[in-house]
Structure formats: structure tokens, C-alpha cells
């Protein structure tokens, strides 16, 4: 297991160097910041929403929704299947694709100075024969009552109406674990023509035994002139 940190350092370094360079991605950047943990026997239904706003910006009024069903397939691996719906102006709102996601927990929480996982996603765009494969590292590090989560992702796109290309994305979240129901955070997103940051709030409410509802809300604001001014991100996840 001690090989992991060195290997992960090399891979994460390469990914973060990609992120720091020029990026040409076509996908959406503001999405969930993934934690590197998987629980055995977990099952969940998840809903995600995002909306972007800035008059005169090409991404103005863009909206996306995802509905997913996830379940663990091993003690350290979980699958999730999503339906994706988008509205990209001037087109109408429509079911735009499907996605299969695998999360793999690489290290036990707290075992090393940081916790590590990997993400693999394959998305197919409906009726266009376009695909997107995403992979990368998920990292989380505790600092007392706060947690820093980083996602360094590489994305490959190909298909009939897409130029085949590699892209990079970087997501970060710094969260204060104040109380289960209310955990304030700040988030940062860097990707194709997008650099944004802003506050977020999340929490979990337990109903009975392993039944619980997790929620996340974030308002991400542009930190450069090319990025759409405001992005609203919202997610609900029911675990059972």
C-alpha cells in the first residue's frame, strides 16, 4: 500500500499540470466534487441540477439535470448510472445522454496523510454518437473540523460531432463540518473556458437506520472574463 502515495503523486502531478495548461473541453465543468470514499452495501438515488446565467454570454440560460441510481459492487467500488437532460440555448430542453460511473476507493480513510480514490465515467450523448470518458484522482485531507477535497480529472471526447481531444478539469472543495445538517464550504472549478469559485452549503439528514438524505447547494461565480458570470448547483442524494 505504501507504493500508492508515490504512484498517486506522479499521476496527480501529471493531471494537475494538464489542468494548469490550456483546456479546450466542451462539457460542463461545475458538477459534484467527489469524495474518495465508498461504503459497502450502499445504494442511492441522486438528482443534480445546474443553471448558468449571464446576459450576452453564449452559456446564458444553460441548464442541466442528472438523475442517477448508484450501488456498491464491492467493499471499495461503487457504480452509478445516470440519465442526463440539458438545455443549451437556443436548443430546447431534452434528454441528452446517459452515463456510467465507477468510483474506486484506493486507501482507507485516515490511513495515510491523505485519502485517495479514482473516478471513471463514460457518457454517451443521445442521437449524436458522441462519447466522453473521464478519469482521475479524488483526494481528501482532514484538517481538524474541516476537510479539503480535490478532484483532478482528465477527459477524452470523441464522436461524430466532436473533435477528439483530451481535456482537464480540476475541482476543489474546502468544507467546515459544523454539524451534520449544515456544512458550509467554498468550491473552485477550473476547466474548458471556465474558472469559477463560490460558496456552497451541504448537509445530511437521517431518517431511519441507513436511510438518509444528503443535499448540496452552491453558487459559483466567474473569476475570469470568459466564464459565465453565475452558476447555480444543487444536488439531492437519498441513501438507503
Amino acid at each position, binding site marked *: 500500500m505504501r507504493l500508492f502515495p508515490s504512484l498517486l503523486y506522479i499521476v496527480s502531478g501529471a493531471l494537475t499540470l494538464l*489542468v494548469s495548461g490550456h483546456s479546450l473541453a466542451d462539457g460542463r465543468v461545475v458538477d459534484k466534487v467527489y469524495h474518495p470514499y465508498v*461504503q459497502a452495501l450502499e445504494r442511492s438515488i441522486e438528482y443534480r441540477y445546474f443553471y448558468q446565467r449571464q446576459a450576452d454570454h453564449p452559456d446564458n440560460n444553460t441548464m442541466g439535470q442528472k438523475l442517477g441510481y448508484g450501488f456498491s459492487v464491492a467493499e471499495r467500488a461503487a457504480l452509478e448510472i445516470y440519465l442526463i437532460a440539458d438545455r443549451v440555448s437556443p436548443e430546447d430542453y431534452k434528454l441528452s445522454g446517459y452515463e456510467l460511473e465507477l468510483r474506486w476507493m484506493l486507501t482507507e480513510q485516515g490511513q495515510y496523510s491523505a485519502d485517495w480514490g479514482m473516478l471513471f465515467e463514460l457518457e454517451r450523448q443521445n442521437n449524436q454518437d458522441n462519447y466522453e470518458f473521464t478519469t482521475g484522482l479524488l*483526494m481528501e485531507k482532514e484538517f481538524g473540523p474541516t476537510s479539503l477535497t480535490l478532484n483532478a480529472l482528465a477527459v477524452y471526447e470523441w464522436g461524430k460531432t466532436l473533435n477528439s481531444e483530451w481535456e482537464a478539469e480540476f475541482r476543489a472543495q474546502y468544507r467546515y463540518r459544523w454539524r451534520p445538517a449544515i456544512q458550509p464550504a467554498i468550491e473552485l472549478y477550473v476547466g474548458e473556458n471556465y474558472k469559477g469559485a463560490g460558496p456552497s452549503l451541504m448537509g445530511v439528514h437521517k431518517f431511519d437506520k441507513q436511510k438518509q438524505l444528503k443535499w448540496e447547494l452552491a453558487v459559483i461565480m466567474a473569476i475570469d472574463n470568459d466564464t459565465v458570470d453565475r452558476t447555480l448547483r444543487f444536488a439531492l442524494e437519498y441513501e438507503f
Partner: protein
Amino acid sequence: MPWQHITLMSLALPVLAEPMLFELQIKDHLFHPSVLYVPAGEKIKLLVLNQDPSPEEFESFSLNREKVILGNSKATLFIGPLQPGRYQFFGEYNPDSAQGVLIALPEAQWQQHRADNAN
């Protein structure tokens, strides 16, 4: 070198010291012991043995840990270093019965606790 690179390099350094081992058992949907004393200020390794045939989940918001332990199975958790204090934990599958508290003692109290238990 980008700042992300430097940050990830520092976060990837392994911890080489072997943490102190503690053991917690689950039997009849109860934690044994239900009060567990550990030293503050150092990482510990907690071996949780589930002697029930059904699964249980060790959960603690204050410890920032959750871990499913399958029936008649065991799991290892790494906790801390903790500030001195009390940290509640419970079994998510049987929250009414499976409850416990981990108490992190400052150095002097921890040494006293060990001496008392050695006698």
C-alpha cells in the same frame, strides 16, 4: 511548478509510524466496550469485530468516520490524531442499541489510565 503540484506533493507523503491498535466488538447489536479510552494527539488504529451475523455501520460525525462491517467480519479504521475530548459513535443499522463513546485523553491522563489498567 504550479501550486496544485506542490500541494499534492505534500499531501502524498506517507505516514510511516505504526499507530496504536485498539479493538471494538459488536455483539447483539452492542459495542464492547461502549466507552473506549485512547490517547489524544496521535493516530490510532481501531479494529472493529462484528460478531453478529448481520452487517453494522460504525458511524461518528465528530470523528468524521463511517464504515460498514459485514456480518461475522472485521474492519479497520484509522482515527485521529484527536484533540482531547469525547467523541460519540453509533451503529447506523441499530442506532438505538449500538452506541458508544471514544474518549481521547491528554498525555498525563492517558499514562495514568494505562497504569491503572496495568494493575
